[in-house]
């Protein structure tokens, strides 16, 4: 093909559509980015500090294994609630979202129990940073889980008032995304702590 011929090729340019996501959901994802950075900095601080030695090693209380399972199941029931909302199945939606809320509370209770067992093991918040970090990780995650419970509560109330249905999914979508993220975050923290004990 000659140079002249190349110039003849008609360039069909499509107008580029402006990217558009639901802004509220986009805001949620950016919040998640900032929370990721918060925990990323915490865990890297943990690694930097651990590399310097003088590090207390201890066995993580077994209850954290159970609480991980509980949170995982709450994530499944959250998904169940979302799917029911999509199908306008209100009985299932209400059951599922209540189960999620109850499991969330149970998880918090178990985390607190985990702290008590740590105290029994004589690993205190004040002391070697290896123990302090565990309290900070679980505490910060717990704080975010409480905020997740608040979001969940608004979705729960909305569900019981029949405001969540196939045509109004934004609230429960936001709630489900955040809840799955918190679940994922805990699983990350848990395996991080197991690996780098």
């Amino acid at each position, binding site marked *: 093909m000659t140079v002249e011929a190349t110039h003849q090729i008609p*360039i069909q*340019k*499509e*107008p*580029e*559509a*402006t*990217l*558009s*996501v639901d*802004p*509220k959901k*986009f*805001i949620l994802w*950016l*919040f998640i*980015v*900032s*929370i990721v*950075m*918060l925990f*990323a*900095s*915490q865990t890297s*601080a943990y690694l*930097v*500090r651990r590399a*310097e030695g*003088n*590090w*207390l090693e201890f066995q993580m209380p077994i209850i954290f294994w159970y609480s991980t399972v509980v949170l995982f199941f709450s994530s499944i029931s959250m998904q169940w609630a979302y799917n029911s909302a999509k199908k306008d199945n209100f009985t299932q939606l209400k059951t599922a979202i209540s189960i999620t809320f109850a499991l969330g509370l149970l998880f918090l209770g178990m985390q607190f129990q985990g702290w008590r067992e740590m105290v029994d093991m004589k690993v205190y*918040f*004040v*002391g*070697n*940073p290896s123990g*302090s*970090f565990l309290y*900070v990780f679980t505490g*910060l995650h717990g704080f975010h889980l409480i905020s997740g419970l608040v979001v969940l509560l608004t979705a729960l109330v909305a569900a019981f008032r029949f405001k969540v249905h196939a045509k109004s999914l934004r609230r429960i979508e936001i709630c489900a995304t955040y809840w799955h993220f918190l679940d994922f975050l805990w699983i990350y923290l848990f395996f991080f702590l197991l690996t780098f004990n």
Partner: protein
Amino acid sequence: MSTLSTGTDVVVYEEEHVHHDDPNFWRKYIFSEDHKVIAKQYLITGIFWAMLGIAMSVVFRIQLGFPDADISWLKPVLGQWISETGKLDPNFYLALVTMHGTIMVFFVLTAGLSGTFSNFLIPLQIGARDMASGFLNMLSYWFFFTASVVMFASLFLQTGPAAGGWVVYPPLSALPQAHLGSELGMSLWLISMALFIVSQLLGGINYITTVINLRTRGMTFNKLPLTIWAFLITAVLGLISFPVLLSAALLLIFDRNFGTSFYLSEIYIAGEALPNVGGSPILFQHLFWFLGHPEVYIVLLPALGITSEIIATNSRKPIFGYRAMIASLLGIAFLAFIVWAHHMFVTGMNPFLGSVFMFLTLIIAVPSAVKAFNYITTLWKGNIVFTPAMLFSIGLVSFFVSGGLTGIILGNSALDIQLHDTYFVVAHFHIVMGAASAFGFFAGVYHWFPKMFGRMMNNTLGQIHFWMTFIGVYLVFFPLHYIGIAGFPRRYYQFTTYDFTSSYTDLNMFVTVAAILTFFAQFIFIYNFFSSIFTGKRSPQNPWRSNTLEWTTPIKPGHGNWPGEIPAVYRWSYDYSKPGAAEDFIPQNVPYSQTLESNLPHENEEIKMEAEIEAQNFNDQFDQPH
């Protein structure tokens, strides 16, 4: 059934729009969700903090330039911090330095600059009715306001505000018994900064969402004005780095108030060994500077974006290297995250690691030079209009170059060993980050004042303000390089103890006098700003004959910015002095089909797409329930 549900939808839609009608005074001016009002709130708060922050620097400059002077005339303001003999209290000197740094970096150049112009310009320049979430935006300002109140209150404590430097390194800041400034003042500093971080995250999340989701038809990323690119990238930097500062502050709070040992180890203070074992103060520095370095770009990038816009407009020329400008912004933003340890060359880090960070640091010179050259080549052979905004923009380029050059010196780990924590560093960052960003701020205010208040600022006063400030800044900070090379350390109360330092006393006096004059020059701006709000000449719709969308709104845009439809965008924002065109500017909303005489061949191709652009969805927030 379907008609019924449509009817319901309309009702819902109207219900959700009740708040658009006639808000009362509180909703309109105080707890406003309108981005223009929030921008002005940020602006006024920023100006207040700036005057306070600069006034503080004048007080400690007097101490440095005239260590023997009797300053009891300041007693009415500073009270107990001036001793019986008219001397400044050394503890309060440290507090002043710390507060000056904190206020100027965070409250003026982060919140005041980014908060004002991101809020004001993002919706106006991308063609949106308002921010993605007006409520979060309002919350962002009020978190900032609360942070301001807490910080301001700390100034009046008996023990004084925080005094460990704006970087608040532990263990000094972690132990209340370490010095006066680590007592309640430090706690309030941490509370204030935590609120400030929340404010910045809320604001930044909103900026990013708005730019990505709410651009008008045809406003593709390659047609965005460079201001918006800069604000977007700044917000991304903040989103990624501020949570890390929150982390650092949180662990510091635990160390201070709960007795943990994240940063503390084996400390012996006031004849007593502390129980803290196993912490690492270097850890704090890593966390702090992971924010701290991006923070300097959070401060500078909006100013660079504003400058790009103003220099192109007032040179009556397209910006040189539009894509290179975006690429260099992205490059600087990326590099900002991997150079933090160049603030820590003397912490005893592995010299090999030091040279890695040195290498990465010096690479920043490349995108920075791209920007500097692009500014200069945009000016080259332009029909330059020397408005005050333009002068300040050119001033910024000057500072960016002269301050950037010393950055190359400081970025070398070997040279940094001599220069670390001397006045050389002070001179460097005050020119490249402080004065450059402040000039971006002034440029932005002079340029967009007509859009904000519908009136013009006084041109003559603006010119006088520029020349006094520009010359003043160089007179203040240029001599500091020499003082720094001579080895004067930062944050020292006085230098007269050693022989080698006394030969620089007159230079310090000179700097102080220049600083005072520069400070007074700012009152010209204050007067010009506030009097022009009420008595300035009424502005035309497009006073600078500019291309961007904000000048297509009414002179005083109301709620929703455009009375009718949001304009569509067909071209980039830099069509200045286009050959063949009747006027020397073609606004972004003028389609190519109306400018056949000046179109380039490939632009004639784009006429075909105009109908499609017009058919696109508006992203109009008023068309959706919100």
